């Protein structure tokens, strides 16, 4: 029972962070700020949701369930290590491609560009 409550709380807070990332990627003005929403909004929410699943999986304890929880834990570790790396790679590609850095000062500039 306590496992289910922990699982529900973790999954719901993970969904909240997913909402933040999804709204951020629509509203933010340029490629780099969108990259902030994409790179960070995903890491914590994936961690929370997958950890909630792993805790729910350990509800009836057995060796098979322990192995599944271990695999979910490995996926989480991989996501937390791969998220910043792909963020670096993509934002470096944006710099090399010559994306403009949107600044507050030029009010005339199209915020979508």
């Amino acid at each position, binding site marked *: 029972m306590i496992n*289910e409550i922990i699982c*529900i709380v973790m*999954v719901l807070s993970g*969904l909240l962070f*997913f*909402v933040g*990332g*999804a*709204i951020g*990627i*629509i509203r933010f003005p340029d*490629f780099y700020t*969108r*990259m902030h929403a*994409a790179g960070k909004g*995903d890491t914590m929410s*994936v961690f929370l*949701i*997958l950890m909630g*699943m792993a805790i*729910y*999986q350990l509800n009836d304890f057995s060796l*098979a369930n322990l*192995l*599944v929880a271990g*695999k*979910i834990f*490995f*996926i989480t570790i*991989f*996501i937390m290590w*791969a998220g910043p*790396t*792909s963020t670096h*790679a*993509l934002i*470096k*590609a*944006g*710099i*090399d*491609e*010559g*994306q*403009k*850095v949107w*600044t507050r*000062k*030029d009010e005339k500039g199209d915020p*979508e*560009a």
Partner: protein
Amino acid sequence: MENFFTLTGVAIFALMLPILYRIIVGPTAIDRIVAVNMIGTKTMVLLIIIGMLFKRVDMFVDFALTYALLNFIGSLAAARFFDRVNPEKQIAKLETKEQES
């Protein structure tokens, strides 16, 4: 608990739609790549939830792991594709433009 997982899956699917908007509208190609990367992460979470619903998590967790690896390698390859222009020159240009404004 089953209903909760179903609702979570529906919510994650609904969260893909705003990112789909970014894929369709997104002004440049690299915006679209970032959005595809985000949808890939959500799909991986969705796979584990489907496994929870079908009571076969031991099978679906392998799919999710493979999907995460392919998603990471795909975004790295796409980023590599843009790595053609001389980086130092571009960074210098951006910084001078910023100081002028």
